[in-house]
Protein backbone atom coordinates (compact mmCIF):
# COMPACT_ATOMS: atom_id res chain seq x y z
CA UNK A 1 0.00 0.00 0.00
CA UNK A 2 2.64 2.47 1.06
CA UNK A 3 4.74 1.52 -1.92
CA UNK A 4 1.87 2.10 -4.30
CA UNK A 5 1.15 5.51 -2.82
CA UNK A 6 4.76 6.39 -3.42
CA UNK A 7 4.39 5.36 -7.05
CA UNK A 8 1.28 7.54 -7.40
CA UNK A 9 2.95 10.49 -5.74
CA UNK A 10 5.77 10.50 -8.24
CA UNK A 11 3.42 10.97 -11.18
CA UNK A 12 2.62 14.66 -10.80
CA UNK A 13 0.79 15.80 -13.88
CA UNK A 14 1.60 19.48 -14.52
CA UNK A 15 -1.63 19.87 -16.51
CA UNK A 16 -3.52 18.91 -13.35
CA UNK A 17 -1.50 20.98 -10.91
CA UNK A 18 -0.90 24.03 -13.08
CA UNK A 19 -4.32 25.67 -13.52
CA UNK A 20 -5.40 25.93 -9.91
CA UNK A 21 -1.93 26.90 -8.66
CA UNK A 22 -1.87 29.76 -11.18
CA UNK A 23 -5.43 30.63 -10.14
CA UNK A 24 -4.53 30.63 -6.46
CA UNK A 25 -1.55 32.89 -7.08
CA UNK A 26 -3.45 35.34 -9.28
CA UNK A 27 -6.69 35.65 -7.32
CA UNK A 28 -5.80 34.81 -3.71
CA UNK A 29 -2.11 35.51 -3.03
CA UNK A 30 -1.53 38.62 -5.20
CA UNK A 31 -4.80 40.30 -4.03
CA UNK A 32 -3.77 39.93 -0.39
CA UNK A 33 -0.30 41.27 -1.13
CA UNK A 34 -1.97 44.25 -2.82
CA UNK A 35 -4.06 45.02 0.28
CA UNK A 36 -0.91 44.99 2.40
CA UNK A 37 0.86 47.17 -0.19
CA UNK A 38 -1.94 49.74 -0.40
CA UNK A 39 -2.41 49.68 3.38
CA UNK A 40 1.18 50.66 4.08
CA UNK A 41 1.72 53.22 1.29
CA UNK A 42 0.36 56.65 0.35
CA UNK A 43 -0.86 57.84 -3.05
CA UNK A 44 2.75 58.21 -4.26
CA UNK A 45 3.69 54.66 -3.20
CA UNK A 46 5.82 55.85 -0.26
CA UNK A 47 5.76 53.89 2.97
CA UNK A 48 3.43 55.32 5.62
CA UNK A 49 1.60 54.22 8.75
CA UNK A 50 -1.11 56.88 8.32
CA UNK A 51 -3.66 54.49 6.80
CA UNK A 52 -3.39 52.08 9.70
CA UNK A 53 -3.43 54.93 12.23
CA UNK A 54 -6.68 56.17 10.71
CA UNK A 55 -8.31 53.65 13.05
CA UNK A 56 -7.64 56.10 15.93
CA UNK A 57 -9.89 58.69 14.27
CA UNK A 58 -12.84 59.09 16.71
CA UNK A 59 -15.57 58.18 14.18
CA UNK A 60 -13.68 55.11 12.96
CA UNK A 61 -12.74 54.00 16.45
CA UNK A 62 -16.35 54.32 17.58
CA UNK A 63 -17.49 52.27 14.56
CA UNK A 64 -14.93 49.53 15.33
CA UNK A 65 -15.96 49.45 18.98
CA UNK A 66 -19.64 49.21 18.07
CA UNK A 67 -18.89 46.45 15.54
CA UNK A 68 -17.00 44.42 18.14
CA UNK A 69 -19.70 44.95 20.77
CA UNK A 70 -22.69 44.16 18.54
CA UNK A 71 -21.10 41.16 16.84
CA UNK A 72 -20.04 39.70 20.22
CA UNK A 73 -23.55 40.29 21.58
CA UNK A 74 -25.18 38.73 18.51
CA UNK A 75 -22.83 35.72 18.70
CA UNK A 76 -23.59 35.07 22.37
CA UNK A 77 -27.36 35.40 21.87
CA UNK A 78 -27.23 33.13 18.80
CA UNK A 79 -25.36 30.53 20.86
CA UNK A 80 -27.84 30.76 23.76
CA UNK A 81 -30.83 30.52 21.41
CA UNK A 82 -29.45 27.81 19.13
CA UNK A 83 -27.92 25.37 21.63
CA UNK A 84 -31.17 24.28 23.33
CA UNK A 85 -32.89 24.12 19.95
CA UNK A 86 -30.08 21.99 18.49
CA UNK A 87 -30.35 19.65 21.50
CA UNK A 88 -34.11 19.30 21.08
CA UNK A 89 -33.74 18.67 17.34
CA UNK A 90 -30.88 16.19 17.76
CA UNK A 91 -32.85 14.12 20.27
CA UNK A 92 -35.95 13.82 18.08
CA UNK A 93 -36.79 10.59 16.31
CA UNK A 94 -34.81 10.02 13.14
CA UNK A 95 -37.41 10.87 10.51
CA UNK A 96 -38.84 13.95 12.22
CA UNK A 97 -35.43 15.33 13.15
CA UNK A 98 -34.18 15.68 9.56
CA UNK A 99 -37.34 17.34 8.28
CA UNK A 100 -37.74 19.78 11.17
CA UNK A 101 -34.06 20.70 11.04
CA UNK A 102 -34.44 21.41 7.32
CA UNK A 103 -37.28 23.80 8.19
CA UNK A 104 -34.97 25.73 10.51
CA UNK A 105 -32.15 25.82 7.96
CA UNK A 106 -34.26 26.93 4.97
CA UNK A 107 -34.12 30.69 5.77
CA UNK A 108 -30.34 30.43 5.43
CA UNK A 109 -30.75 29.72 1.72
CA UNK A 110 -33.00 32.70 1.09
CA UNK A 111 -31.29 35.87 -0.10
CA UNK A 112 -29.93 37.48 3.05
CA UNK A 113 -30.58 41.02 1.81
CA UNK A 114 -34.27 40.29 1.51
CA UNK A 115 -34.36 38.84 5.02
CA UNK A 116 -32.87 42.03 6.45
CA UNK A 117 -35.22 44.05 4.25
CA UNK A 118 -38.06 42.18 6.01
CA UNK A 119 -36.88 43.52 9.36
CA UNK A 120 -36.82 47.01 7.91
CA UNK A 121 -40.51 46.55 7.13
CA UNK A 122 -41.17 45.36 10.67
CA UNK A 123 -39.18 47.97 12.58
CA UNK A 124 -39.86 51.15 10.60
CA UNK A 125 -41.53 54.21 12.07
CA UNK A 126 -44.76 53.20 10.30
CA UNK A 127 -43.75 49.55 10.27
CA UNK A 128 -45.68 46.47 11.27
CA UNK A 129 -44.62 46.52 14.94
CA UNK A 130 -45.56 50.17 15.47
CA UNK A 131 -48.88 49.57 13.67
CA UNK A 132 -49.60 46.76 16.10
CA UNK A 133 -48.68 48.96 19.06
CA UNK A 134 -51.01 51.67 17.74
CA UNK A 135 -53.80 49.10 17.46
CA UNK A 136 -53.49 48.47 21.21
CA UNK A 137 -53.28 52.25 21.83
CA UNK A 138 -49.64 52.04 22.88
CA UNK A 139 -47.18 54.81 22.00
CA UNK A 140 -44.97 54.15 18.93
CA UNK A 141 -41.40 53.13 19.62
CA UNK A 142 -38.23 54.34 17.95
CA UNK A 143 -36.94 50.98 16.74
CA UNK A 144 -35.11 51.38 13.45
CA UNK A 145 -31.77 53.19 13.06
CA UNK A 146 -30.60 52.08 16.50
CA UNK A 147 -27.74 49.73 17.43
CA UNK A 148 -30.36 47.31 18.81
CA UNK A 149 -32.02 47.02 15.41
CA UNK A 150 -28.63 46.08 13.92
CA UNK A 151 -27.99 43.49 16.66
CA UNK A 152 -31.42 42.01 15.99
CA UNK A 153 -30.69 41.86 12.27
CA UNK A 154 -27.40 40.06 12.96
CA UNK A 155 -29.06 37.52 15.24
CA UNK A 156 -31.81 36.86 12.71
CA UNK A 157 -29.48 36.66 9.74
CA UNK A 158 -26.87 34.36 11.31
CA UNK A 159 -28.92 32.12 13.63
CA UNK A 160 -29.06 29.24 11.11
CA UNK A 161 -25.25 29.42 10.76
CA UNK A 162 -24.98 28.77 14.49
CA UNK A 163 -27.67 26.10 14.52
CA UNK A 164 -26.26 23.91 11.76
CA UNK A 165 -22.80 23.12 13.23
CA UNK A 166 -24.29 22.68 16.72
CA UNK A 167 -26.88 20.27 15.38
CA UNK A 168 -24.22 18.29 13.50
CA UNK A 169 -22.04 18.06 16.60
CA UNK A 170 -24.95 16.99 18.82
CA UNK A 171 -26.18 14.27 16.45
CA UNK A 172 -22.68 12.78 16.51
CA UNK A 173 -22.58 12.89 20.30
CA UNK A 174 -22.66 9.45 21.93
CA UNK A 175 -25.53 9.74 24.40
CA UNK A 176 -24.28 6.64 26.25
CA UNK A 177 -21.48 8.84 27.57
CA UNK A 178 -24.08 11.28 28.89
CA UNK A 179 -26.00 8.48 30.56
CA UNK A 180 -22.76 7.17 32.03
CA UNK A 181 -22.17 10.59 33.60
CA UNK A 182 -25.63 10.43 35.19
CA UNK A 183 -24.98 6.89 36.43
CA UNK A 184 -21.75 8.03 38.01
CA UNK A 185 -23.66 10.61 40.03
CA UNK A 186 -23.28 13.81 38.03
CA UNK A 187 -26.26 16.14 38.18
CA UNK A 188 -27.77 17.80 35.11
CA UNK A 189 -25.63 20.92 35.34
CA UNK A 190 -22.40 19.00 35.78
CA UNK A 191 -23.25 16.68 32.91
CA UNK A 192 -24.04 19.56 30.61
CA UNK A 193 -20.99 21.69 31.33
CA UNK A 194 -18.45 18.91 31.82
CA UNK A 195 -19.58 16.28 29.32
CA UNK A 196 -21.96 17.61 26.66
CA UNK A 197 -20.35 21.03 26.08
CA UNK A 198 -16.73 19.74 25.88
CA UNK A 199 -17.75 16.94 23.51
CA UNK A 200 -19.56 19.34 21.18
CA UNK A 201 -16.81 21.98 21.34
CA UNK A 202 -15.87 21.70 17.62
CA UNK A 203 -19.50 22.53 16.74
CA UNK A 204 -19.57 25.46 19.17
CA UNK A 205 -16.29 26.79 17.81
CA UNK A 206 -17.35 26.61 14.17
CA UNK A 207 -20.74 28.13 15.02
CA UNK A 208 -19.10 31.05 16.80
CA UNK A 209 -16.71 31.71 13.90
CA UNK A 210 -19.52 31.43 11.34
CA UNK A 211 -21.50 34.11 13.19
CA UNK A 212 -18.80 36.39 14.60
CA UNK A 213 -16.70 37.02 11.48
CA UNK A 214 -19.56 37.99 9.14
CA UNK A 215 -21.27 40.01 11.90
CA UNK A 216 -18.06 41.90 12.66
CA UNK A 217 -17.52 42.82 9.02
CA UNK A 218 -21.07 43.43 7.80
CA UNK A 219 -22.12 46.67 6.22
CA UNK A 220 -25.44 45.58 4.69
CA UNK A 221 -27.23 45.05 8.01
CA UNK A 222 -26.18 48.47 9.27
CA UNK A 223 -27.09 50.06 5.91
CA UNK A 224 -30.62 48.64 6.02
CA UNK A 225 -31.37 48.82 9.75
CA UNK A 226 -29.08 51.64 10.90
CA UNK A 227 -29.88 54.17 8.22
CA UNK A 228 -26.81 56.34 7.84
CA UNK A 229 -27.00 57.14 11.54
CA UNK A 230 -25.28 54.07 12.98
CA UNK A 231 -21.99 53.20 11.31
CA UNK A 232 -20.05 49.96 11.67
CA UNK A 233 -16.44 49.44 10.63
CA UNK A 234 -17.73 47.66 7.50
CA UNK A 235 -19.58 50.82 6.45
CA UNK A 236 -16.46 52.95 6.89
CA UNK A 237 -14.37 50.59 4.74
CA UNK A 238 -17.13 50.33 2.13
CA UNK A 239 -17.39 54.12 1.95
CA UNK A 240 -13.62 54.46 1.49
CA UNK A 241 -13.80 52.23 -1.58
CA UNK A 242 -17.15 53.07 -3.17
CA UNK A 243 -17.65 56.75 -2.26
CA UNK A 244 -14.40 58.40 -1.12
CA UNK A 245 -12.21 56.39 -3.48
CA UNK A 246 -9.28 56.29 -1.06
CA UNK A 247 -8.00 52.74 -1.49
CA UNK A 248 -5.01 53.32 0.77
CA UNK A 249 -7.09 54.20 3.82
CA UNK A 250 -9.63 51.50 2.96
CA UNK A 251 -6.86 48.89 2.73
CA UNK A 252 -5.25 50.09 5.96
CA UNK A 253 -8.54 49.75 7.84
CA UNK A 254 -9.12 46.31 6.26
CA UNK A 255 -5.76 45.21 7.62
CA UNK A 256 -6.81 46.31 11.11
CA UNK A 257 -10.05 44.37 10.67
CA UNK A 258 -8.11 41.29 9.54
CA UNK A 259 -6.04 41.45 12.72
CA UNK A 260 -9.24 41.12 14.75
CA UNK A 261 -10.43 38.22 12.58
CA UNK A 262 -7.08 36.45 13.03
CA UNK A 263 -7.18 36.99 16.81
CA UNK A 264 -10.68 35.53 17.05
CA UNK A 265 -9.64 32.55 14.91
CA UNK A 266 -6.56 31.93 17.02
CA UNK A 267 -8.65 31.96 20.21
CA UNK A 268 -11.18 29.60 18.67
CA UNK A 269 -8.53 27.22 17.37
CA UNK A 270 -6.94 27.14 20.82
CA UNK A 271 -10.24 26.02 22.38
CA UNK A 272 -10.87 23.47 19.66
CA UNK A 273 -7.44 21.89 20.12
CA UNK A 274 -7.68 21.86 23.88
CA UNK A 275 -11.03 20.14 23.89
CA UNK A 276 -9.95 17.63 21.28
CA UNK A 277 -7.10 16.69 23.58
CA UNK A 278 -9.49 16.28 26.48
CA UNK A 279 -11.84 14.19 24.35
CA UNK A 280 -9.00 11.90 23.34
CA UNK A 281 -8.12 11.22 26.95
CA UNK A 282 -11.74 10.26 27.56
Amino acid at each position, binding site marked *: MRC*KEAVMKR*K*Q*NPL*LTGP*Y*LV*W*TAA*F*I*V*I*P*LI*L*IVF*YGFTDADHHFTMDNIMRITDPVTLKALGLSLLLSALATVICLI*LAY*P*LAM*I*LARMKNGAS*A*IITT*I*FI*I*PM*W*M*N*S*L*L*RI*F*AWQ*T*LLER*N*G*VINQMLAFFHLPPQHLINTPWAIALGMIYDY*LPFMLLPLYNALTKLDWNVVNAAYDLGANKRQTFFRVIVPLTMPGIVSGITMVF*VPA*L*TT*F*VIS*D*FLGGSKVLLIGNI*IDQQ*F*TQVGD*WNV*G*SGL*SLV*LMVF*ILISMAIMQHYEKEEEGAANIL
Partner: protein
Amino acid sequence: MKKFFTRLYVVLIFILLYAPIGVLIAFSFNNSKTRAKWGGFTFKWYIGMFRNAEIMEALRNTLILAFVSAFIATLLGLMACLSLNRMKKRKRSIVLGILNIPMLNADIVTGISLMLVFIAFGQFLSRYGYTIVFGFGTVLLGHITFNIPYTVMSIMPRVQGINPSTYEAALDLGATRSEAFRKVVLPDILPGVLSGFLLAFTLSLDDFVITHFIKGPGFDTLSTKIYTEVRKGIKPEMYALSTLLFVGVLLLMFGIEKGRNARKKSQQYH
Protein backbone atom coordinates in the same frame (compact mmCIF):
# COMPACT_ATOMS: atom_id res chain seq x y z
CA MET B 1 -44.66 19.90 31.47
CA LYS B 2 -41.12 19.65 30.20
CA LYS B 3 -42.42 18.49 26.86
CA PHE B 4 -44.70 21.51 26.70
CA PHE B 5 -41.80 23.92 27.21
CA THR B 6 -39.57 22.25 24.63
CA ARG B 7 -42.43 22.43 22.12
CA LEU B 8 -43.08 26.06 23.00
CA TYR B 9 -39.40 26.86 22.52
CA VAL B 10 -39.27 25.20 19.09
CA VAL B 11 -42.44 27.02 18.02
CA LEU B 12 -41.17 30.40 19.26
CA ILE B 13 -37.92 30.13 17.30
CA PHE B 14 -39.90 28.97 14.29
CA ILE B 15 -42.05 32.12 14.55
CA LEU B 16 -38.96 34.31 14.98
CA LEU B 17 -37.46 32.86 11.79
CA TYR B 18 -40.58 32.81 9.64
CA ALA B 19 -42.67 35.81 10.77
CA PRO B 20 -40.53 38.32 8.83
CA ILE B 21 -40.73 36.15 5.71
CA GLY B 22 -44.50 35.88 6.24
CA VAL B 23 -44.73 39.67 6.37
CA LEU B 24 -42.82 39.94 3.07
CA ILE B 25 -45.22 37.48 1.46
CA ALA B 26 -48.30 39.28 2.82
CA PHE B 27 -47.08 42.66 1.54
CA SER B 28 -46.43 41.23 -1.91
CA PHE B 29 -50.22 40.91 -2.34
CA ASN B 30 -51.04 44.29 -0.79
CA ASN B 31 -52.91 46.63 -3.13
CA SER B 32 -51.83 49.81 -1.33
CA LYS B 33 -49.07 52.25 -2.12
CA THR B 34 -48.03 52.77 1.50
CA ARG B 35 -46.92 49.48 2.91
CA ALA B 36 -48.40 50.29 6.32
CA LYS B 37 -52.03 49.80 5.29
CA TRP B 38 -53.80 46.81 3.81
CA GLY B 39 -55.55 47.90 0.63
CA GLY B 40 -56.91 44.64 -0.69
CA PHE B 41 -55.50 41.71 -2.64
CA THR B 42 -53.56 42.20 -5.86
CA PHE B 43 -51.11 40.54 -8.23
CA LYS B 44 -49.95 43.84 -9.71
CA TRP B 45 -46.51 43.82 -8.04
CA TYR B 46 -45.82 40.41 -9.56
CA ILE B 47 -46.82 41.67 -12.99
CA GLY B 48 -44.74 44.80 -12.41
CA MET B 49 -41.76 42.67 -11.41
CA PHE B 50 -41.94 40.49 -14.52
CA ARG B 51 -42.27 43.60 -16.70
CA ASN B 52 -39.28 45.27 -15.02
CA ALA B 53 -36.51 44.69 -17.55
CA GLU B 54 -33.76 45.52 -15.04
CA ILE B 55 -34.91 42.92 -12.52
CA MET B 56 -35.27 40.28 -15.24
CA GLU B 57 -31.81 41.13 -16.58
CA ALA B 58 -30.37 40.81 -13.05
CA LEU B 59 -32.14 37.46 -12.60
CA ARG B 60 -30.67 36.18 -15.86
CA ASN B 61 -27.18 37.40 -14.92
CA THR B 62 -27.46 35.72 -11.51
CA LEU B 63 -28.46 32.34 -12.95
CA ILE B 64 -25.83 32.32 -15.72
CA LEU B 65 -23.18 33.44 -13.26
CA ALA B 66 -24.12 30.78 -10.70
CA PHE B 67 -24.11 28.01 -13.30
CA VAL B 68 -20.86 28.94 -15.07
CA SER B 69 -18.93 29.80 -11.90
CA ALA B 70 -20.07 26.60 -10.16
CA PHE B 71 -19.10 24.53 -13.19
CA ILE B 72 -15.60 25.99 -13.53
CA ALA B 73 -15.02 25.99 -9.76
CA THR B 74 -16.01 22.32 -9.58
CA LEU B 75 -13.65 21.47 -12.43
CA LEU B 76 -10.75 23.37 -10.85
CA GLY B 77 -11.62 21.94 -7.43
CA LEU B 78 -11.57 18.41 -8.81
CA MET B 79 -8.20 18.98 -10.46
CA ALA B 80 -6.88 20.47 -7.24
CA CYS B 81 -8.08 17.48 -5.18
CA LEU B 82 -6.59 14.92 -7.58
CA SER B 83 -3.19 16.60 -7.57
CA LEU B 84 -3.22 17.54 -3.87
CA ASN B 85 -3.84 13.91 -3.06
CA ARG B 86 -0.50 13.01 -4.61
CA MET B 87 1.47 15.74 -2.87
CA LYS B 88 3.63 15.30 0.19
CA LYS B 89 1.74 16.03 3.36
CA ARG B 90 3.57 19.25 4.23
CA LYS B 91 3.24 20.79 0.80
CA ARG B 92 -0.40 19.72 0.65
CA SER B 93 -1.32 21.43 3.90
CA ILE B 94 0.35 24.66 2.77
CA VAL B 95 -1.49 24.69 -0.57
CA LEU B 96 -4.79 23.75 1.11
CA GLY B 97 -4.28 26.52 3.65
CA ILE B 98 -3.86 29.14 0.93
CA LEU B 99 -6.76 27.68 -1.06
CA ASN B 100 -9.02 28.01 1.99
CA ILE B 101 -8.31 31.71 2.57
CA PRO B 102 -11.45 32.98 0.74
CA MET B 103 -13.59 30.64 2.86
CA LEU B 104 -12.15 31.88 6.18
CA ASN B 105 -11.55 35.51 5.32
CA ALA B 106 -14.27 38.15 5.64
CA ASP B 107 -16.18 38.69 2.38
CA ILE B 108 -15.50 42.42 2.46
CA VAL B 109 -11.73 41.80 2.48
CA THR B 110 -11.97 39.23 -0.32
CA GLY B 111 -14.09 41.66 -2.35
CA ILE B 112 -11.72 44.57 -1.84
CA SER B 113 -8.62 42.50 -2.58
CA LEU B 114 -10.15 41.22 -5.83
CA MET B 115 -11.13 44.75 -6.82
CA LEU B 116 -7.54 45.91 -6.25
CA VAL B 117 -6.12 43.01 -8.26
CA PHE B 118 -8.44 43.65 -11.22
CA ILE B 119 -7.42 47.31 -11.22
CA ALA B 120 -3.75 46.32 -11.04
CA PHE B 121 -4.14 43.78 -13.89
CA GLY B 122 -5.98 46.46 -15.84
CA GLN B 123 -3.13 48.94 -15.41
CA PHE B 124 -0.63 46.29 -16.43
CA LEU B 125 -2.61 45.28 -19.52
CA SER B 126 -3.25 48.87 -20.59
CA ARG B 127 0.44 49.13 -21.46
CA TYR B 128 -0.23 46.56 -24.17
CA GLY B 129 -3.41 48.23 -25.35
CA TYR B 130 -5.88 45.98 -23.50
CA THR B 131 -8.43 47.07 -20.90
CA ILE B 132 -10.31 45.24 -18.15
CA VAL B 133 -13.97 46.18 -17.97
CA PHE B 134 -15.60 45.63 -14.59
CA GLY B 135 -18.71 43.56 -15.26
CA PHE B 136 -19.68 39.96 -15.97
CA GLY B 137 -16.08 38.85 -16.51
CA THR B 138 -14.64 40.20 -13.28
CA VAL B 139 -17.62 38.99 -11.25
CA LEU B 140 -17.28 35.53 -12.80
CA LEU B 141 -13.58 35.35 -11.88
CA GLY B 142 -14.43 36.45 -8.34
CA HIS B 143 -17.22 33.91 -7.91
CA ILE B 144 -15.03 31.07 -9.17
CA THR B 145 -12.34 32.13 -6.68
CA PHE B 146 -14.57 32.07 -3.60
CA ASN B 147 -16.30 28.86 -4.78
CA ILE B 148 -13.14 26.76 -5.23
CA PRO B 149 -12.51 26.12 -1.48
CA TYR B 150 -16.06 24.84 -1.07
CA THR B 151 -15.83 22.45 -4.02
CA VAL B 152 -12.47 21.20 -2.73
CA MET B 153 -14.06 20.68 0.70
CA SER B 154 -16.82 18.53 -0.83
CA ILE B 155 -14.64 16.53 -3.23
CA MET B 156 -11.52 15.97 -1.07
CA PRO B 157 -12.96 13.28 1.28
CA ARG B 158 -14.10 11.25 -1.73
CA VAL B 159 -10.72 11.49 -3.45
CA GLN B 160 -8.93 10.49 -0.26
CA GLY B 161 -11.24 7.51 0.03
CA ILE B 162 -10.22 6.10 -3.36
CA ASN B 163 -8.36 2.85 -3.22
CA PRO B 164 -5.48 3.30 -5.70
CA SER B 165 -5.38 -0.47 -6.24
CA THR B 166 -8.69 -0.41 -8.15
CA TYR B 167 -7.30 2.17 -10.59
CA GLU B 168 -4.17 0.11 -11.09
CA ALA B 169 -6.18 -3.09 -11.45
CA ALA B 170 -8.13 -1.42 -14.26
CA LEU B 171 -4.84 -0.47 -15.93
CA ASP B 172 -3.51 -4.04 -15.51
CA LEU B 173 -6.69 -5.38 -17.07
CA GLY B 174 -6.01 -3.34 -20.19
CA ALA B 175 -7.94 -0.12 -19.65
CA THR B 176 -6.34 3.07 -20.90
CA ARG B 177 -5.66 5.74 -18.29
CA SER B 178 -8.63 7.83 -19.32
CA GLU B 179 -10.91 4.76 -19.34
CA ALA B 180 -9.70 3.76 -15.91
CA PHE B 181 -10.36 7.28 -14.64
CA ARG B 182 -13.81 7.54 -16.19
CA LYS B 183 -15.04 4.07 -15.31
CA VAL B 184 -13.33 3.36 -11.99
CA VAL B 185 -12.32 6.58 -10.25
CA LEU B 186 -15.05 8.98 -11.39
CA PRO B 187 -18.08 6.97 -10.16
CA ASP B 188 -16.51 6.90 -6.69
CA ILE B 189 -16.04 10.66 -6.47
CA LEU B 190 -19.16 11.73 -8.38
CA PRO B 191 -21.38 12.33 -5.30
CA GLY B 192 -18.74 14.71 -3.90
CA VAL B 193 -18.47 16.46 -7.27
CA LEU B 194 -22.25 16.94 -7.47
CA SER B 195 -22.63 18.25 -3.92
CA GLY B 196 -19.67 20.58 -4.51
CA PHE B 197 -21.38 21.92 -7.62
CA LEU B 198 -24.68 22.47 -5.78
CA LEU B 199 -22.93 24.22 -2.87
CA ALA B 200 -21.00 26.49 -5.25
CA PHE B 201 -24.19 27.23 -7.20
CA THR B 202 -26.14 28.34 -4.12
CA LEU B 203 -23.21 30.36 -2.73
CA SER B 204 -22.88 32.20 -6.02
CA LEU B 205 -26.66 32.87 -6.09
CA ASP B 206 -26.54 34.35 -2.60
CA ASP B 207 -23.37 36.42 -2.76
CA PHE B 208 -23.68 40.14 -2.37
CA VAL B 209 -20.57 41.57 -0.72
CA ILE B 210 -17.89 40.31 -3.13
CA THR B 211 -20.01 41.09 -6.20
CA HIS B 212 -20.64 44.60 -4.84
CA PHE B 213 -16.95 45.49 -5.09
CA ILE B 214 -16.09 43.89 -8.44
CA LYS B 215 -19.22 44.37 -10.55
CA GLY B 216 -18.70 47.86 -11.93
CA PRO B 217 -21.55 50.15 -13.01
CA GLY B 218 -24.19 48.84 -15.39
CA PHE B 219 -23.93 45.21 -14.36
CA ASP B 220 -26.22 43.80 -11.68
CA THR B 221 -27.02 40.50 -10.04
CA LEU B 222 -30.24 40.05 -8.07
CA SER B 223 -28.43 40.78 -4.81
CA THR B 224 -26.86 44.02 -5.97
CA LYS B 225 -30.15 45.05 -7.60
CA ILE B 226 -32.02 44.44 -4.33
CA TYR B 227 -29.41 46.50 -2.49
CA THR B 228 -29.82 49.56 -4.70
CA GLU B 229 -33.62 49.23 -4.83
CA VAL B 230 -34.00 48.93 -1.04
CA ARG B 231 -31.69 51.89 -0.44
CA LYS B 232 -33.77 53.98 -2.87
CA GLY B 233 -36.94 53.41 -0.84
CA ILE B 234 -40.22 51.52 -1.03
CA LYS B 235 -40.36 49.04 -3.90
CA PRO B 236 -43.30 46.64 -3.64
CA GLU B 237 -41.80 44.60 -6.48
CA MET B 238 -39.13 43.54 -3.99
CA TYR B 239 -41.83 41.87 -1.88
CA ALA B 240 -43.01 39.92 -4.93
CA LEU B 241 -39.43 38.92 -5.69
CA SER B 242 -38.88 37.78 -2.09
CA THR B 243 -41.97 35.62 -2.21
CA LEU B 244 -40.96 33.92 -5.46
CA LEU B 245 -37.38 33.34 -4.26
CA PHE B 246 -38.64 31.89 -0.98
CA VAL B 247 -41.00 29.49 -2.77
CA GLY B 248 -38.13 28.51 -5.06
CA VAL B 249 -35.84 27.73 -2.12
CA LEU B 250 -38.61 25.80 -0.38
CA LEU B 251 -39.26 23.59 -3.41
CA LEU B 252 -35.54 23.01 -3.97
CA MET B 253 -34.83 22.04 -0.35
CA PHE B 254 -37.72 19.62 -0.11
CA GLY B 255 -36.82 18.20 -3.51
CA ILE B 256 -33.28 17.48 -2.27
CA GLU B 257 -34.59 16.05 1.01
CA LYS B 258 -37.03 13.79 -0.83
CA GLY B 259 -34.33 12.63 -3.23
CA ARG B 260 -32.07 11.82 -0.29
CA ASN B 261 -34.80 9.83 1.44
CA ALA B 262 -35.59 7.91 -1.74
CA ARG B 263 -31.91 7.08 -2.16
CA LYS B 264 -31.66 5.92 1.46
CA LYS B 265 -34.67 3.65 1.02
CA SER B 266 -33.36 2.12 -2.20
CA GLN B 267 -30.04 1.50 -0.46
CA GLN B 268 -31.81 -0.30 2.34
CA TYR B 269 -33.34 -2.77 -0.09
CA HIS B 270 -29.99 -3.70 -1.60
